[in-house]
């Protein structure tokens, strides 16, 4: 059998990673067989996959490329007590039993490496450039920030990877999203990606890997790049990617699973070859002027229904497309909003600071920088949920927990929490929330709950004023005694 060789023409980052994972090139319209370097597992999408292996008497092929954590169902309070919700407890107990039976490394509640699967991979140094990463979770796109090919898969694919460490896949199309220029003060990665989704639509990325390029992307930290790649799926894309550079290498180096010695040198030498070649052709290209971007917020019930925070709630008539118009009508009704209302006049009941989009240490620092020395608006419930137990420890070492609790926020244990409300962290019907998460679908954060997606900075300012706001709307802080 011959080793598949890459073509000679200039290639994009995505094509290079793909080519280097070809086990068998598909012919006659058959998919390629792609090798998977890292398989992340959590309690929600794995039980049926383990079940399937058991039923067929198949072993898990590579336990050394597999790692599991508990995140979707875990409580964020009283984590030392048994989980009250029976079904949540069953899922978690099932993962624990399966991990033991199949020999998979598992980070359980209470462990320093437990947390949201997309926070844990990068923090351990398992996520690195030029690898393929899959997980039974659509926000696996997060890991593309390292220049990895990372995408969500369904439970039967989870079983497939467990059994074969490969996936049959058709190559994705590529779309370059170039963001050039300097971001205005207070404009973050979250605002860029919300603007991208509003521009291309929740289906504009369908079938594509989005590669974020340009000076504004190069200037982002790894956390910011992860936020962007995380939400690529909300534009309908399979994955998001950013070419690796010094910022990437610095982030990876020294982490528990990062390569060392000669392996590190070999890896970096290879990683430097990954950025898209001069003259590589993308299937589609989008350009965005960074200087024009403002803090962005969603008004509707899909992540594409967003506008600048300084704007107003649109009217259904603003949309030419009949489907979009109908969707807007439905969304306005669900969100209980009147067209023409300035976004900044919308009061909220809750603020959720967390999720795999924005729960890393840098996100918590951003939130803290705004709320420090201030008091939350009366009657607003503010929850701060770190992405992992390790992030929680880091935040506490920096004293951020005190900043949050003095502000009046609840400081919780790590997990997905109110991002999807599988645990008790939910909105009540009719409650309105400014959330740093990634999905504002109907009922996502609790049945009847209303979600506005925002950046950590906007979440923080909103928590101060009790209505959607950006830090520039806040009155100057009273001098804090040193």
């Amino acid at each position, binding site marked *: 059998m011959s080793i598949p060789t890459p073509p000679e023409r200039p290639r994009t980052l995505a094509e290079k990673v793909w080519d280097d994972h070809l086990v068998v090139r598909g012919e006659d319209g058959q998919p390629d067989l792609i090798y998977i370097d890292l398989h992340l597992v959590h309690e929600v999408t794995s039980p049926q996959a383990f079940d399937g292996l058991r039923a067929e008497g198949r072993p898990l092929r590579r336990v050394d490329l597999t790692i599991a954590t508990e995140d979707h169902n875990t409580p964020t309070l009283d984590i030392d007590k048994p989980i009250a919700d029976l079904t949540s407890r069953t899922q978690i107990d099932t993962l624990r039993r399966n991990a033991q039976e199949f020999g998979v490394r598992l980070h359980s509640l209470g462990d320093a490496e437990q947390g949201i699967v997309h926070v844990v991979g990068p923090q351990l*140094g398992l996520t690195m450039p030029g690898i393929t990463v899959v997980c039974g979770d659509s926000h696996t796109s997060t890991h593309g920030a390292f220049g990895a090919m990372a995408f969500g898969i369904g439970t039967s694919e989870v079983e497939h990877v467990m059994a074969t460490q490969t996936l049959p896949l058709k190559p994705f199309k590529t779309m370059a999203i170039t963001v050039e220029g300097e971001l205005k003060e207070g404009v973050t990665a979250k605002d860029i990606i919300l603007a991208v989704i509003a521009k291309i639509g929740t289906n504009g990325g369908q079938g594509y890997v989005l590669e974020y390029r340009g000076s504004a992307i190069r200037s982002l930290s790894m956390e910011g790049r992860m936020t962007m790649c995380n939400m690529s799926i909300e534009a309908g894309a399979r994955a998001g990617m950013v070419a690796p550079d010094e910022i990437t290498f610095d982030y990876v180096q020294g982490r528990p699973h990062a390569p060392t010695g000669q392996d590190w040198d070999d890896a970096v030498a290879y990683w430097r070859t990954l950025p898209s070649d001069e003259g590589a052709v993308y299937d589609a290209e989008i350009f965005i002027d960074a200087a024009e971007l403002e803090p962005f917020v969603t008004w509707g019930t899909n992540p594409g229904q967003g506008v600048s925070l300084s704007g107003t709630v649109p009217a259904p008539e603003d949309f030419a497309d009949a489907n979009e118009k109908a969707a807007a009508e439905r969304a306005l009704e669900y969100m209980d909003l009147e067209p023409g209302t300035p976004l900044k006049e919308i009061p909220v009941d809750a603020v959720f600071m967390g999720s795999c989009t924005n729960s890393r240490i840098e996100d918590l620092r951003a939130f803290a920088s705004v709320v420090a020395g201030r008091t939350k608006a009366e009657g607003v419930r503010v929850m701060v949920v770190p992405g992992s137990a390790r992030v929680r420890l880091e935040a506490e070492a920096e004293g951020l927990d005190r900043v949050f609790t003095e502000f009046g926020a609840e400081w919780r244990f790590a997990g997905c929490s109110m991002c999807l409300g599988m645990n008790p962290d939910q909105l009540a019907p009719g409650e309105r929330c400014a959330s740093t998460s990634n999905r504002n679908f109907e009922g996502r954060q609790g049945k009847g709950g209303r979600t506005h997606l925002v950046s950590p900075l906007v979440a923080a300012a909103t928590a101060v004023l009790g209505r959607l706001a950006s830090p520039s709307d806040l009155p100057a802080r009273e001098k804090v005694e040193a």
Partner: protein
Amino acid sequence: MEKFATHTGVVAPLKRSAVDTDQIIPAVYLKRVTKTGFEDALFANWRQDPDFVLNQPAFSGASVLVAGPDFGTGSSREHAVWALRDYGFRVVLAPRFADIFRGNAGKQGLLAGVISESDRAAIWAAVDAAPGATMTVDLEARTASIGDLRVPFEIDDYTRWRLLEGLDDIGLTLRNEEAIAQFEARREAWRPRTLPVA
């Protein structure tokens, strides 16, 4: 997996676009650890409304769903396909599907066929005229017929072949065992390992 050739069953119109997987099966049902028995979870929130299409007697036992564009967007949960399958659906037709949903459907023997926007409208009109009518879906010919109306649908060749043959993914892939082992033998040492190397 059962082989799929032709299927005839009651067709239910789901008159919405962008039906996301949170609506197909709300997150609360994802807590189960079994692979079957999700029929009660399908469209659980909408089914509380007595007027919802699946609650109407004419559509009881429906096995073909015809929905608006962008069906299955949102979370990658495969439970969405299980819920449709367990409820009794064998076919979903829509003018556009989310990629992940369509992939999941093919693997579970649920046919997800792409129809044109005008054919979608014609089918809804035909069902409005005769609620409870059956539709015959011919995978070999890639056509769906209801009464005198016969429309083509698109499905990629590979998924169609798999459905026609009733082939399981893992078994197919493991026919490449030798190539997988060769690939593993030449993987670089720096690539991640989750377990401490002994």
